[in-house]
């Protein structure tokens, strides 16, 4: 009904000293005075090095061409006229939507040059430390990204230390120093340079270790897997380089490394640092001790990596994409023109891949037919909706487990986990997983891992199948029933209920309330290109409900007569953000503006501990042809066949994020809760998933 997080009245707190700029709530005066200066400089918003107000610079580019790209990234021309609204929101919403607050900051008059510079350097942090994070998109939310980045750096360091320490006393120090210096100088050193520096050091290190034989090579390979730039130099080339280095090392000339290393990376700054590193090199202890030490240090490191959730694949990272392509079961032609902001998401030219997949059917001997079937169904869009997809996947896994027999010399626990992982990656290729499916997979894997070793294979298989059955029954089917019961209490006679798209839970609620004999009317709001609401409408009409059908364009018109808004969700995140079909946020926002309560119906297994502030960093892109083409209207299909035009980009987003302030209530199988209580449910019941 109302915002839960609208700036609350706080008791008087005496503030001592000065308020730092990092204060998430910009002082109200700033926002009040903002409008005038913005008007004054709105003519030239993009010539400054600041971020543009709507677009976040794409994360994947090297800095050399970034400024140019940034100006290219400004694809929304009305942004300047929209900015005052953004600033308003920053002021009103307070710390909630920091994606905006960052964007608002640079243009605000009181944020000094220093401030904007700080934000850019921070942006750099996000970008070049791993290349996996979509830079500014979610980082300003209070350091979430920053911490992960730090973790990343940290683990990187940890990974290097064991190699560095035993060989030369100062090696680790050099590494650390290098990291620090590169991070402090980040505003100036480009990503490429930094990479080059690291590469050079690594090469030098590998060379010094050369004596260790295969160990060094292996280590280097492992390193390279985390290094994106290495994708350019092939493995063979690197081995060649190492051979050369080893030969040089054998000759006892420490200096011999330098040119090779420099050739490997070639940056202006690394030459300065190189001598200090190499000066220590000859004084290195035995490599054997080093390898021992390494072995001892590795487990904790690995555990730490387990704690950090694996970063999502960023599809703007060419190296990784190429690598994953090699592994891919089938080749999906990628869409040529993707919208700048969403390049980190996969987008394929759907349609052609189906035949590709079919032709590969006979080659896919490793793929279980049930999984294959589900994958094709995902691809073709035959199975949609979070619950249906999740159940289809789990049923397929059930068949996999039934048909499974442990190969000789392997254990069920490990082999089956690996198998399921490979199936999961196949399914991801077909369509990105929803978060609910991720939860289900996590549950499945933890059940496998927790199998007692004493169980025989048949027993274990039976137990796993039983677990899947229980998951489907308890977490999905029964949960839906409970939600329906709860939600029906909120339907009164004379209500007008609005729903958007087609959510199976909401449909069940409407039908159940109708069965109870409540007198209400339904407004089904639909949108292009999927028209999911029409199927819902048909089913509702078949049961005799009185319905109104409209498109999302008319939602602000229809909202004044609505008394409740029922919405489904793909997942609900820890900060109460609802991740759902694109358009949901719009409906919720309009409802909020009209003071109509918004009820989100979502099973608790779809709750996720992640925090997301926008719908940019994780989303799904649909087929751009879908929005380019209007079926049955040849007169307006001028956009058809222009998907590959250079100056035209189609953005067909599948999901969006609804901020928790627009949500009055979330109805789950644990009852009706406010969106602020999602983390409580996650905290209290996450264990249960694993223990069931």
């Amino acid at each position, binding site marked *: *009904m109302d915002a*839960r997080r609208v700036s*609350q009245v706080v008791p*008087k707190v005496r503030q001592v000293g000065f308020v730092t700029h990092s204060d998430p709530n910009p002082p109200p005066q700033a926002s009040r005075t903002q409008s005038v200066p913005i008007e004054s400089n709105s003519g030239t918003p993009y010539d400054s090095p600041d971020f543009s107000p709507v677009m976040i610079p794409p994360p994947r580019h090297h800095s050399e061409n970034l400024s140019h790209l940034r100006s290219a990234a400004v694809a929304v021309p009305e942004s300047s006229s929209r900015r005052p609204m953004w600033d308003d929101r920053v002021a009103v919403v307070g710390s909630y939507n920091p994606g905006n607050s960052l964007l608002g900051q640079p243009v605000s008059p009181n944020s000094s040059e220093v401030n904007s510079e700080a934000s850019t350097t921070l942006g750099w942090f996000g970008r070049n430390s791993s290349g996996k994070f979509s830079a500014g998109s979610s980082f300003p939310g209070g350091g979430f990204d920053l911490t992960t980045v730090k973790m990343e750096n940290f683990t990187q360091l940890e990974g290097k230390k064991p190699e560095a320490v035993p060989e030369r006393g100062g090696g680790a120090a050099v590494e650390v120093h290098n990291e620090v210096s590169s991070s402090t100088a980040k505003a100036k050193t480009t990503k490429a340079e930094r990479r080059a520096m690291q590469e050079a050091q690594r090469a030098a290190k590998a060379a010094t270790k050369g004596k260790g034989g295969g160990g060094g090579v292996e280590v280097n390979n492992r390193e390279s897997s985390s290094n994106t730039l290495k994708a350019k130099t092939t493995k063979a080339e690197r081995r060649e380089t190492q051979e050369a280095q080893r030969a040089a090392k054998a000759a006892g000339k420490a200096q011999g490394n330098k040119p090779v290393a420099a050739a490997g990376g070639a940056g202006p700054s690394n030459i300065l640092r190189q001598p200090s590193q190499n000066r220590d090199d000859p004084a290195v202890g035995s490599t054997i001790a080093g390898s021992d030490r390494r072995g001892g240090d590795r487990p904790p490191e690995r555990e730490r990596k387990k704690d950090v959730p694996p970063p999502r694949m960023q599809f703007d990272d060419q190296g990784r994409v190429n690598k994953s392509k090699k592994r891919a079961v089938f080749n999906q032609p990628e869409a040529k023109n993707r919208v700048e902001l969403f390049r980190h998401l996969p987008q394929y030219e759907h349609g052609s891949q189906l035949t590709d997949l079919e032709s590969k059917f006979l080659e896919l001997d490793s793929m279980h037919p049930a999984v294959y079937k589900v994958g094709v169904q995902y691809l073709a869009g035959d199975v949609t909706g979070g619950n249906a997809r999740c159940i289809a996947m789990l049923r397929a896994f059930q068949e996999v487990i039934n048909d499974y027999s442990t190969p000789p010399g392997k254990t069920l626990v490990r082999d089956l986990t690996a198998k399921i992982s490979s199936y999961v990656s196949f399914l991801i290729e077909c369509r990105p997983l929803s978060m609910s499916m991720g939860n289900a997979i996590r549950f499945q894997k933890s059940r496998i891992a927790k199998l007692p070793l004493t169980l025989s294979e048949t027993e274990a298989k039976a137990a796993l199948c039983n677990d899947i059955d229980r998951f489907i029954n308890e977490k999905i089917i029964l949960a839906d029933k409970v939600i329906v019961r709860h939600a029906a209490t909120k339907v009164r006679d004379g209500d007008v209920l609005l729903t958007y798209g087609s959510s199976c839970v909401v449909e069940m609620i409407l039908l159940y309330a109708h069965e109870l004999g409540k007198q209400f009317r339904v407004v089904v709001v639909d949108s292009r290109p999927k028209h999911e609401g029409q199927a819902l409408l048909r089913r509702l009409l078949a049961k005799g409900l009185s319905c109104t059908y409209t498109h999302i364009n008319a939602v602000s018109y229809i909202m004044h007569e609505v008394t409740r808004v029922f919405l489904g969700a793909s997942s609900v995140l820890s900060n109460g953000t609802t991740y759902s079909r694109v358009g949901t946020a719009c409906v919720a926002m309009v409802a909020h503006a009209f003071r109509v309560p918004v009820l989100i119906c979502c099973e608790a297994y779809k709750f996720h501990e992640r925090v997301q502030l926008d719908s940019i960093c994780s989303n799904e892109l649909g087929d751009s042809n879908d929005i380019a083409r209007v079926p049955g209207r040849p007169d307006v299909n001028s956009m058809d066949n222009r998907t590959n035009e250079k100056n035209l980009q189609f953005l067909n987003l599948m999901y969006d994020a609804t901020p928790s302030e627009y949500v009055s209530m979330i109805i789950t199988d644990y*009852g009706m809760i*406010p969106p602020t209580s999602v983390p*409580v449910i996650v905290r209290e019941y996450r264990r249960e998933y694993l223990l069931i």
Partner: protein
Amino acid sequence: MWHRSASFILDKNQNDTVYPADSVTLTPPPPSSISTPQNPNPNLNRNMSMSAYYQTRAAHHGVVTSDWLAQSQEAATRAVVTGGQEIVDGGKSGRAFSVIDEFNNWRKQPDLAEAVAAIRALAAVIRNSEAKTMMELEIELKKASDSLKSWDTTSISLTAGCDLFMRYVTRTSALEYEDFNSARSRLIERAEKFGEISYKARKIIAMLSQDFIFDGCTILVHGFSRVVMEVLKMAAQNKKLFRVLCTEGRPDRSGLRLANELAKLDVPVKLLIDSAVAYTMDEVDMVFVGADGVVESGGIINMMGTYQIALVAHSMNKPVYVAAESYKFARLYPLDQKDMGPALRPIDFGVPIPSKVEVETSARDYTPPQYLTLLFTDLGVLTPSVVSDELIQLYL
């Protein structure tokens, strides 16, 4: 003071006519009556314009208008008539009446909140139970709490208190492993502990809230809440210098009583009519209200007028503090004002109202959480969103 009230007349009627014999000893329920618990409260009549909850409040707070008294008298006589046939049914299941009786006994203590009385009554059920097994005892307790709840469906704290008691008492893992007698004594122990906690809640809240009352502040209070009274009393005892603005609290004028009590403590008090809240909000430093119930969203259900005071305070950036015991936390989630069962209360306008004119007699409203700053409870000082966390932990 309470004995002047119409509620007492009802009680007396019940006590005298229904069960003159000792009803404290509980008899195990005959198996036939388990299926349908009778509504034992004869005055729970849908036609009645006064909800039982407000009768109790009026009984305790003792501000009675002539009009109200007349209506209550009338309701009481009607209740006796309707109660007549219930006595026949009720004769079979004397046990359920005994709980109510026990509850009424406790309720006569003017300082005891209704929920605490219910908790005490339920503890007495355990003590007097003749059940032989744990299951039997639990069923008996369940029935007793159900009958208490149905005695007054409009009281949120009564329902919530009963539910919480059941949760608190029966949720011990040790129960299964012990023999019945020790398990029972453990239950009694827990029940008494819970009663004690609930009883002390007001004191704890008063202690917690002292940090928020600073010298020279002006506090706006709406309605009469014993918790808020306790808070202000303790602040006065601590030699804090503050001023209180009391709303009149129509229609039962509960604000007048608060003003009286505060004047006795030498606290400077100023009375306002309910519509002068926005006019005086300028000079107010904080708003203090009690609550009939705290709902899952973190909002409160309280006497009519709380919502508009909270709105005015919010728009003027004044903090709104709620003092509420944790047994008032209810698993309700109203989405808007009309989303609750109405609790009705007659309003005395002083002049005759034409029959064509409709009168809004709802006695309470719902204040959404975003207009509240903090809740002072015996669990600590909470933000509204923590209420749901506590409820989830208690109930799930």
